[in-house]
């Protein structure tokens, strides 16, 4: 590599100069705005702008017993490490069962999370990786699907929780593509709830989720401090959709 002050700090690390980070941040922001389905660009934006927020998150984790354990043990959420059959077999309403349901309904997998590339600290690279892997769990706890509306709501929650600029940008610019009715529901009910929950809740990275599969979603929400989601019925052209 041309610019290599210390060489790669972790597998997949691409050392970058400050100028490159600025260019990456600007370019990835534009690319993500043009095509919100470019998850790789959202990831790059998060890494290049999140340095301060990641340090704050890491400090929060260090000062919490469970968070500290997570930093030490470095658990990863991957299909290969999850007991998928076991989780599916759990009773309805448990965190593990609902998480599996979320993955199936939305046809997503935890394995598609991009590994960190442009974070210049090995521990912070783990923190952002953990944040990405916890994102799906947030969908489950907040009861939000992976369509545009659901993602925006989760972004609002995460923006308040993590302070990551990428979340804030996603939260503010995400709604641009939404239709008026959804926008109305968003602004009057969903965002206030997401923001309130985000402010109330403990740091979401300080929960060892892998040990909570049998806990019910309600009790986990209460423990963390997330308010129960508003019950809304949204009618689309071909199907209705209940939130929570």
């Amino acid at each position, binding site marked *: 590599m*041309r610019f290599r*002050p210390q060489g790669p700090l972790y597998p997949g690390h691409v050392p970058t100069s*400050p100028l490159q980070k600025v260019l990456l941040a600007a370019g990835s922001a534009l690319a993500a705005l043009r095509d919100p389905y470019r998850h790789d660009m959202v990831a790059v934006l998060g890494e290049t702008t999140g340095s301060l927020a990641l340090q704050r998150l890491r400090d929060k984790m260090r000062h919490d017993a469970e968070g500290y354990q997570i930093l030490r043990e470095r658990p990863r959420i991957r299909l290969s490490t999850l007991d998928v059959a076991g989780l599916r077999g759990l009773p309805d309403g448990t965190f593990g069962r609902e998480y599996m349901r979320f993955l199936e309904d939305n046809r997503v997998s935890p394995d598609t999370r991009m590994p960190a590339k442009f974070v210049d600290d090995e521990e912070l690279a783990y923190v952002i990786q953990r944040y990405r892997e916890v994102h799906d769990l947030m969908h489950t706890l907040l009861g939000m699907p992976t369509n545009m509306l659901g993602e925006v709501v989760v972004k609002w929650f995460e923006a308040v929780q993590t302070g990551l600029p990428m979340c804030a940008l996603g939260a503010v610019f995400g709604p641009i593509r939404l239709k008026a009715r959804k926008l109305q529901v968003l602004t009057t009910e969903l965002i206030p709830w997401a923001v309130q929950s985000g402010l109330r809740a403990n740091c979401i990275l300080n929960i060892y989720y892998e040990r909570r599969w049998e806990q019910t979603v309600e009790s986990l929400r209460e423990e963390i401090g997330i308010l129960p989601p508003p019950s809304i019925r949204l009618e689309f052209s071909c199907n209705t959709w209940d939130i929570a």
Partner: protein
Amino acid sequence: MAASIGAASCRALFCRSWGKRLSAAGRLLGGARGLAAQGETHLGFQTVPEAEKEQRVYQVFESVAKKYDIMNDSMSFGIHRLWKDILLHQMNPYPGTQLLDVAGGTGDIAFRFINYIRSQREYQLRQKLKSHQNLSWQEISKSYQEEALKPLGGSQVVICDINKEMLKVGKQKAQHLGYTEGLSWVVGNAEELPFDDDKFDVYTIAFGIRNVTHIDQALQEAYRVLQPGGRFLCLEFSQVNNPLISRLYDLYSFQVIPVLGEIIAGDWKSYQYLVESIRQFPAQEEFKAMIEDAGFLKVEYRNLTAGIVAIHSGFKL
């Protein structure tokens, strides 16, 4: 050793001759042409076993194939199109010329060749008609029929590339743009071409030869497949002599191009390899000597865009 040079120099972010210093270190590491005995060669600024380089380069181009053209336009602000046009003008083919375009992947040179021949043919036809003012209707329609039967006057271009993905993109482009005749697509290695001796009138290799593991072998193959009187033309990135432009070029290459690769193609590493491989390629005079070693005569080069790119030309006489 290069690592400590790197660390020391990196304090000042955009230090002078950064690219040259590091590429010199890269060469010291065993990347130079003469260290074949150790079985190692350069892959950008890395050192790899020779046997591995071909495979690694294959993977790079497999990965970039779909975005190759759009990246070329973005990185060079479209100027690569001018460079290729100039190459064709220097070639100045006429209807009947047989062209071999090696590492021709997505077809840029081949399509330009066909356009050039077509316009030459039209010009020929117009001249012919002009000179015969008293042609009968039958004679005029006969010459149009001849034109329709042989629109290229017997010219053909064979596009040869080692990478199937690049050829695939090229074929799709040809279909999309309406190039149906006079083209053949062949998978082949520049170091060992699947063609007989003395077959082609012109051999071109545009932005391909620096990716070849044994450049001298590629040059020898070029000599072999050309007819006596045939012409070798190489369009390739070269060394910039002007210190100011060189600094700006290095800055742009190393700071901006990998970023563009990441944003547009989602592939940082391939474009990092690209800018590094440019620094590892021999300078104009050295490459000219290599071409002469392969047996070519009247070897010349001309710099384009201050030496960022050079066209080398030689004849088999």
